[in-house]
């Protein structure tokens, strides 16, 4: 859609983004506050970051969280990519409606239901609750997000490239690895990053499926937030926001550079023949 970009449009965008970003900016700024009071400014200081380093419980929780996120994002990306191929390339098969239901329902399912039902299945299967059960739980809900991200890319690329490869004698497997995967690679990377941050952020599902000894960072933050607002929480939040921002921006940059390069090469190819 194009049209006049009016004052009304500019104002609604400005107010909208102010609403989205002011709370986050205040949180980041006040993590550098000298005072223990989170809403009264008393000068710059990085002492709350220093006190984070002293907090062994927080460091342990961060380590558990990162391990869970790395593990679950990787498995979820593989399963999600397979699921995306199933949705876009496999046509009709028995159980297709059930399959797409199981991909889309977790995207909107309230966390308390997902958490409770996963816990009960772990109890029924006799799994020891802890690191592995959180990881399995995170794979389950993040793979659906990964599937949706990869599916969007698979849908709008030209299927005839795959068909050409197979006409030239490539097997479906080698076609996938040599033709399809390089084309969808940026979306697979975005899917991995999304799965990673969703796992990093999850409180409710992890709380249900954890066991003794496995406390994740959001669980730690939650138990402190319930006691009140402290500058340490602002500091740890700022670090997490920083990691996510750098990750998202570099993924966007990477994708843009790749599409720019593809565009340039296409122009060059047409220029050469024309």
């Amino acid at each position: 859609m194009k049209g006049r970009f009016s004052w009304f449009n500019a104002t609604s965008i400005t107010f909208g983004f102010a609403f989205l970003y002011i709370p986050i900016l205040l949180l980041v700024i006040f993590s550098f506050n000298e005072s223990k009071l989170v809403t009264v400014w008393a000068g710059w200081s990085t002492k709350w970051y220093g006190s984070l380093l002293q907090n062994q419980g927080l460091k342990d929780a961060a380590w558990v969280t990162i391990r869970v996120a790395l593990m679950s994002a990787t498995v979820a990306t593989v399963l999600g990519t397979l699921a995306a191929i199933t949705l876009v390339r496999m046509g009709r098969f028995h159980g297709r409606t059930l399959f797409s239901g199981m991909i889309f329902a977790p995207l909107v399912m309230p966390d308390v239901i997902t958490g409770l039902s996963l816990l009960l299945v772990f109890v029924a299967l006799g799994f020891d609750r802890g690191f592995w059960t959180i990881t399995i739980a995170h794979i389950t809900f993040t793979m659906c997000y990964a599937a949706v991200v990869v599916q969007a890319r698979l849908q709008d690329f030209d299927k005839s490239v795959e068909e050409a490869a197979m006409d030239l004698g490539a097997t479906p497997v080698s076609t996938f690895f040599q033709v399809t995967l390089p084309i969808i690679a940026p979306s697979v990377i975005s899917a991995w990053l999304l799965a990673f941050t969703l796992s990093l952020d999850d409180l409710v599902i992890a709380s249900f499926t954890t066991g003794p000894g496995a406390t994740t960072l959001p669980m730690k933050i939650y138990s402190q937030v319930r006691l009140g607002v402290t500058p340490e929480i602002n500091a740890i939040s700022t670090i997490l926001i920083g990691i996510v921002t750098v990750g998202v921006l570099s993924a966007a940059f990477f994708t843009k550079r790749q599409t720019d390069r593809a565009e340039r090469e296409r122009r060059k190819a047409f220029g050469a023949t024309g």
Partner: protein
Amino acid sequence: MRARISDLKRWYVIGAPFLWLLVFFLIPFFIVFKLSLSDVATAIPPYTPTFSWSKGISAFISQLDFENYTFLFSDPLYINSYLSSLKIAFFSTILTLLVAYPMAYGMARAPKSWQPTLMMLVILPFWTSFLIRIYAWIAILKPEGFLSLFLIKLGLISEPLQIMNTTTAVYIGIVYSYLPFMILPLYASLEKINPSLLEAAQDLGSQPWRAFWQVTFPLSMPGVFAGCLLVFIPAVGEFVIPDLLGGSDTLMIGKTLWTEFFNNRDWPLASAVAVLLLLVLIIPIVLFQRQQEMEREAGR
């Protein structure tokens, strides 16, 4: 690809995600249902199964125990939690739509070169921790928080505002955290609208406002529909927002379920709460799936 790969080989691709979701997403619901028919006990895990499948179908039916469900319906706390969750989710969905629509509309009309950046700015908060974004609002809304301090300084109010720990705070929290979920589908459908349709309407003498209601808004309906479902369904079962921003009088079913499970350790009752919540949400969830499938078909 479809014509070349045999059915058996297709299942190499379909099999792994299908089985995974079957075991860890679908089957768990049956276990939740089964447990909701059990009694609570002081044990690990804290319940006694009231029935087993092995004794035949008539013995199975006679063992069914709907005690937890009759309890849910006899205690007004639970009914009120369900109703109040639906009400809060409904009104916050409408509020989110009202905030998101002008933004998505402005984004779709912005110069093409700005659009990727604007998209990025919407996506970034969506990737940032939910918990942290809710936490950020505590410092704003509490009586000695930023909002009250700011308004007092401006001389608009003399007493601190009492928003924290009220249902108003829950509305603000839901609108704030679910806003990107509403903007993205709205933007996607607004961006697709062909500008010549609007020009045609205006050439034929339609006022801009009328052209909006008769051309733009109907064409953006798929986005409105998807966005509303993406906000409404998870908001009904929301736990973090009512727990951190709401007060003791803010009843929401997700919080009730959490309390039954973690504080009262009543797993069977928590399961019954979950089963009823799922029954309430099953129709919107099916609508959401249909809508996503239709989008996919249309995208080919």
